[in-house]
């Protein structure tokens, strides 16, 4: 009997030892840990496909029921605005810029609880034309940008992450600032002049920063202000997207990549 118990005990102790070593190893080598996680997730993606399709169907149905009228209203507004801008461009005899990219829909496949406000992973990657730096949108608002890509997945850093920094503009005043998160769900517009007065509801959008990120993507609206520091007053921003519940996003992919495909 003692021998039997010992065999089980030995196996349990060995499992403990291996487990603790792996915890230490993966903790000490986050790059390896992340690569292993991505590998396992990619392998399981085939098994999980039916469940993901069901979830997608559920969310699509719910969105269709709940958001149809609001999306139609927003679409009408955007179409009107687009027509007005095209008319203005035609009157000014300015050339209409060609589209530089299109939006591709992607499902959120992973969002760790302790990284909830920092990053999430989607099921589209370089095979689909998703590149590092590309903006991700939800409900028509920018919610983050791609920071790492694989062939079939990409990681998006959220606007609520404290490491997220993005040039943004207050649409009503044309003041430039920097969008920065606080890791607990808040979004702040930093480095805008202290003497400026911003009212609630003023819209914030992306400023021209590079090829991957077109200017004018809505980020949110001003909802308050923080404590002054170093000559500026941080402005609290509310995103138009429901950041606590993101099931799918749209990522801007470049035209060049799309034509390659």
């Amino acid at each position, binding site marked *: 009997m003692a021998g039997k118990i010992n065999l*089980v005990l030995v196996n349990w102790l060995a499992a403990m030892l291996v487990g603790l070593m792996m915890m230490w190893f993966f903790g000490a080598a986050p790059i390896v840990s992340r690569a292993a996680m991505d590998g396992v997730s990619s392998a399981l993606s085939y098994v999980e496909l039916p469940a993901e399709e069901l979830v997608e169907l559920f969310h699509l149905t719910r969105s269709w029921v709940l958001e149809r009228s609001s999306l139609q209203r927003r679409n009408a507004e955007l179409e009107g605005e687009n027509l007005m801008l095209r008319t203005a461009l035609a009157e000014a005899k300015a050339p209409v810029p060609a589209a530089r990219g299109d939006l591709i829909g992607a499902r959120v496949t992973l969002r760790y609880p302790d990284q909830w406000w920092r990053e999430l992973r989607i099921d589209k990657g370089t095979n689909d034309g998703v590149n590092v730096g590309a903006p991700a949108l939800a409900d028509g608002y920018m919610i983050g940008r791609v920071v790492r890509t694989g062939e079939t997945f990409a990681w998006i850093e959220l606007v609520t992450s404290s490491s997220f920094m993005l040039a943004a503009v207050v649409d009503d005043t044309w003041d430039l600032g920097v969008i920065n998160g606080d890791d607990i769900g808040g979004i702040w517009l930093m480095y805008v002049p202290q003497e400026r007065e911003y009212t609630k509801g003023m819209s914030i959008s992306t400023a021209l920063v590079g090829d991957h990120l077109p200017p004018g993507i809505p980020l949110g609206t001003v909802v308050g202000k923080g404590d002054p520091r170093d000559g500026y007053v941080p402005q609290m921003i509310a995103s138009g997207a429901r950041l606590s519940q993101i099931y799918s996003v749209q990522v801007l992919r470049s035209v060049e990549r799309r034509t390659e495909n």
Partner: protein
Amino acid sequence: MLIAALVWIIQDMLQVGAMGYMLVPDLFLMIVIYRVLTGEFSQASVSWWIWGAFVGGMIWDLRWAVSPGMSAVVNATVVYVAYLIWSRTPSGGRSPVLFALIAIAGNVISGLAHYLIWAVPSQAALRMFFAQQFFSIPLLIILFIRYVVVLRRGEKSV
């Protein structure tokens, strides 16, 4: 072992559906406990189940958790402790109630470990923990009934 693997996949698929809302119950661990306590109770068999639980926990960690290895260690320990309690209980005392208590304790310990690893226990996390335990009840009842049936069949054959 095949059934446990299938249950693991079902648990994974359920977690895909429940992502953002709740943690699904640890169905895999409960099935492993059930198989350990009601199957061939030999040292070799239990050792295999310890490693099976370990591998299942490790893959789960790599898919869903942020500290790979934690579920593997917890699973292996829960299976070992369940075996220890069961092996030291006289045959007459191995009742469905004791079986249910071990299964419930295993599920609670596994859930609690995930809850505590979040480091910043919030109300939302606590709610998720209780939801996970609540949704474990149907499987616990099924396993309990199944064990009672298995036990009665055994008594009749004796």
